[in-house]
């Protein structure tokens, strides 16, 4: 923590913060110092002790990063399968902004936002983020504008950095009747960094947000992503996680359904091997009548890997006619894996329909036998079953081109 103190002072000194910002940052730094990284004593971190994981995987962490020299955006970083808008962050630094295919008067990207929002939940990683981010970005989609092409945010690190803490914060505002398709793509060459990303979404009436987070490529980083979503009436949010590449990853989503007829969908895939440890934690708050939420998370675990799913549906006493659903399933492919789940319901209204289910076990030997008797090899049969199991989640994606892209990235044939 000594590191943090000196690095935090450096951050304050080398940036031109306003007085308000400084006091905000000081407050957050103090909170973080008091609490440190969360450990298993926190109920929310019971299954994933990030303090221990950082100590084990990284050891001493650097909190201050020089933001001077430009990084080149290599062509091979960018995806060419799909036409898209781009934001490229390399080592936490914004290197490329491209909204060329959109109507410039309808979409705004600002990088000079001061980040003085209220503390929403007790979370020392958000404190850390607030204390250290030197820029806070904001994307605004104006009234009645439907974004044409998806926006891909590239999260890239190169081999210049190691043992570095990178913080990023973006606020998204979707005005009435607007829509945004957002893909977060992780592309890391740097290793053993702790990446802490915090998104705030504000969804006005009738707006639609689709967020796809893709962590597909093998990397040694420790990742924490927090999505805080506030939804007004008739808005829809869809969040999809492909959780595969990083050594450790925890995706958290905190969604307030504040307007009637709003709905939230959370879908996720864990496909893990090589001692990886990934978690999805979702909390959906149904605060008014007639709201809907749906969660589906599936895991396939191999080779000492471990997945955690913590999902919570909260229904306020005002939120009659809530429809809430949660399902988590896991296949433990071999002996060394572990699946933990905590699907929670907290309900204060009586006229609701809420349910959750969870199942875990091995691959069904009978199905494998059936397929092998039809002429498939053991390996093929196994692959077919696993892919069929996971593809159900991918098929929940409502945007066809992106569904295709994700199947493609994951290596699934289109027939699935």
């Amino acid at each position, binding site marked *: 923590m000594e590191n943090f103190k000196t690095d935090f002072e450096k951050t304050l000194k080398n940036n031109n913060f306003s007085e308000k910002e400084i006091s905000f940052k000081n407050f957050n730094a103090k909170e973080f110092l008091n609490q440190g990284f969360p450990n298993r004593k926190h*109920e929310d971190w019971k299954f994933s002790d990030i303090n221990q994981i950082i100590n084990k995987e990284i050891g001493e962490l650097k909190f201050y990063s020089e933001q001077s020299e430009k990084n080149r955006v290599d062509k091979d970083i960018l995806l060419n399968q799909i036409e898209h808008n781009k934001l490229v962050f390399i080592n936490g630094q914004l290197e490329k902004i491209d909204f060329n295919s959109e109507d410039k008067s309808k979409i705004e990207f600002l990088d000079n936002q001061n980040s003085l929002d209220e503390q929403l939940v007790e979370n020392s990683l958000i404190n850390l983020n607030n204390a250290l981010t030197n820029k806070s970005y904001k994307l605004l989609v104006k009234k009645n504008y439907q974004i044409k092409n998806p926006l891909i945010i590239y999260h890239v690190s190169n081999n210049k950095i190691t043992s570095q803490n990178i913080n990023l914060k973006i606020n998204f505002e979707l005005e009435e009747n607007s829509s945004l398709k957002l893909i977060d793509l992780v592309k890391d060459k740097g290793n053993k960094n702790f990446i802490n990303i915090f998104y705030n979404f504000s969804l006005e009436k009738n707006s639609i947000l689709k967020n796809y987070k893709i962590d597909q490529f093998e990397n040694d980083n420790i990742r924490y992503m927090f999505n805080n979503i506030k939804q007004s009436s008739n808005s829809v949010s869809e969040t999809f996680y492909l959780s595969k590449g990083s050594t450790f990853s925890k995706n958290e989503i905190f969604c307030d359904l504040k307007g009637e007829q709003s709905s939230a969908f959370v879908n996720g895939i864990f496909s893990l091997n090589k001692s990886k440890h990934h978690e999805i934690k979702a909390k959906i708050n149904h605060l008014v009548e007639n709201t809907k939420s749906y969660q589906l998370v599936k895991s396939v675990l191999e080779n000492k890997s471990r997945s955690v799913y913590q999902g919570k549906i909260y229904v306020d*006493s*005002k939120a*009659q006619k809530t429809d809430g659903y949660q399902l988590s399933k*896991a296949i*433990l*492919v*071999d*002996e*060394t*894996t*572990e*699946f*933990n*789940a*905590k*699907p*929670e*319901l*907290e*309900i*204060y*209204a*009586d*006229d*609701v*329909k*809420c*349910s*959750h*289910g*969870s*199942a*875990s*076990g*091995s691959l069904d030997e009978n199905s494998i036998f059936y397929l092998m008797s039809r002429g498939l090899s053991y390996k093929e049969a196994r692959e077919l079953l696993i892919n069929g199991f996971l593809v159900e989640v991918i098929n929940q994606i409502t945007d066809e081109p992106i569904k295709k892209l994700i199947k493609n990235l994951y290596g699934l044939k289109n027939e699935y």
Partner: protein
Amino acid sequence: MREKELEKLKDYKYGFSTDIENFKAPKGLNEDVIKFISSIKKEPKWLLDWRLKAYNRVKVLKEPNWQKPKYPKIDYQDLYYYSAPKSFKEKPKSLDELDPKLIETYNKLGIPLNEQKKLNGIAVDAVFDSVSVATTFKDTLTEKGIIFCSISEAIQKHPDLVKKYLGSVIPITDHYFATLNSAVFTDGSFVYIPPGVRCPMELSTYFRINASDTGQFERTLIIADKGSYVSYLEGCTAPMRDENQLHAANVELIALDDAEIKYSTVQNWYPGDKDGKGGIYNFVTKRGLCKGKNSKISWTQVETGSAITWKYPSCILQGDNSVGEFYSIAITNNHQKADTGTKMIHLGKNTKSKIISKGISAGFSDMTYRGLVDISPKSENSSNYTQCDSLLMGNKCGAHTIPYIKNKNANSNIAHEATTSKISDEQLYYCQQRGLNSEEAVSLIVNGFCKEVLQQLPMEFAVEAQKLVGISLEGSVG
């Protein structure tokens, strides 16, 4: 005045108190009180040392605070840790010497201690505040070699068994309330079923808290030796008092090879009045160990009483092929709060567990199912099935489900389902159309909702429990 009393008793018919002279330990929790309890019960030295060891740990332990129902701080120094009817300073040798007032109390509760009025062949151990007052049907049981007596008696007569098994499932290094119980436990039941014996009747303990400002800390120890079977029932009531009373019991079950224990509870402690004043804090630790191969432990509970219920009857499935079951109905009304569930810890191979939990909350109450299913890496081919359903009545109450699921073995299966809903208008309409009034209709539907669990109870209990379910929900509809 009397009418007012009667009016009050309508809601909770066990709410009377017995006016009997009590003999108490000095108020407060300290070494002297523990020595006092130990000496009055003429305990051997090892047990006193064991109690003191537990007490030393209580001093450094903190009360857990993760539970959903919060309660005002308990002043442990303001409680009596030992209370017994005065006539018990010298324990009566037989029922004839028993204080008639006590016999009357139990008659009022529907538990006749006189063996002539046989209660359908159920042997009863009656616990009044801190002491066991009577155990019936001793002769029949002794014939078979079954030991069924109060734990104080067992300490005197069967010290080897007690020493071997006491604390083997709930050690003194456990959580706060369990450790507190180890330090100050007063009485409870002891059951030992010898190898190969099938206990011919239901064994039952009836707990009654009478004195005020008293905590009841009883300890029950049940050992089923190889190939034996026992079914054990537990019932509880307390008078209506305005202050909250603490009940922190420990129950340990041990099933050896091929043995089976069936433990049923109908818990009807005083739940407090309509505004949530008074009532029992029921903080109980219940744990069963399936130690041997092919052993089985089954918990069935009907929880309708107590201001706060906080308990998780658990099974540790250590022996290969062992089976754990948990059937629960929890009903909360008015300002009652319950945080209950189970833990199934699979350690042995081919172990199976099943959890059926039904929660009903009405009024301003709050109900939580909290459970753990943990399958360890060595527990091959194990399986668990969990189903927890909640029923809500009104929008001032809450129903919560917090399951923890840990699967560390690829050849094991865990399935979990939970639903929350209300009684549908169609169902009510259908019943009312057939001539039932709304309360009868609700009672019928709720009984249907609970049926899976009620079926698990022994006959006499099931009838009682069914009525209790109806009574607990009175006034919650309409």
